[in-house]
């Protein structure tokens, strides 16, 4: 909708809106928040990787012990 008027637009109930639209502004902030929320997710995934690696090394170690001693390892 386009308007032409001889009187100021604000007098006709047509406010001067900011250059950046309201949806655009909120979308920008929303994207920022969500992008930084990726940090804890990546951190969690990395920790899972580290723990998984440690656990596998631990199992290998127990297997070696079992072969050497013939005793069932205890956790």
């Amino acid at each position, binding site marked *: 909708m386009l308007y032409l*008027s001889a009187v100021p637009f604000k007098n006709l109930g047509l406010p001067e809106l900011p250059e950046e639209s309201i949806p655009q502004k909120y979308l920008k902030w929303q994207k920022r928040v969500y992008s930084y929320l990726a940090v804890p997710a990546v951190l969690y995934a990395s920790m899972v990787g580290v723990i998984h690696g440690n656990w596998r090394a631990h199992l290998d170690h127990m297997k070696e012990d079992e072969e050497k001693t013939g005793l069932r390892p205890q956790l």
Partner: protein
Amino acid sequence: MGITRRDALRRLTTGTVSAVATGAAGGLALSGVAASEEKPQAPAEALGMLYDATRCVGCQSCVAACAKANNLAPDIRVNGLHQIAYDLNATTKNIIKLYKPADGKSYSYVKQQCMHCVDPACVAGCMFKGLKKDPQTGVVSWNSKLCVGCRYCEIACPYHIPKFQWEGFNPKIVKCELCKERLAKGVQPACTEVCPKNAVIFGKRQELLAEANRRIAESPGKYFEDRVYGEH
């Protein structure tokens, strides 16, 4: 044990640092994308209306034609006879208002209806996509099958255009949809068809913008700040 506490701490620290670095880099990259997003533009073939307040005589033909075309009950609450709505409401999608300053001069009529914004806040506010902006025509329309009646659109709209039908068992959101049924038949909206002074005209947005600029160039100083409201 092959892993000492020192090894475990070292791996954990390395993992943490790399994770934080990756996340931060990703975050910065994404925020960079958001910041570099261009301003939304109207579709090339967008339809619209041009309302010239200096031509409007306030006859309200458009209001009556709108109600008739959209099967809305005429709002005759003022005097029980004439269709005179004070404001947009559950049965009024389009209204002509009078601006009359205290000093008595420079009065003007104004047509109030959905602006079909380039970047509509009502569409952004609707959580179920009950309101949608057509990517080709640019018309903002309402879908009764998706609307849950939350009325967020009413709150989000900076012009306070969408109205809710508080009465009845199956309420709707009422707003101008540019007579989409008529457009589908190749007919222009009812309000532009009946306007006796061509104060409101229908067409492609680009053409209307050119027409508005032509009028401004033809009569410098006639229009407020020699500019078109709704262009940006």
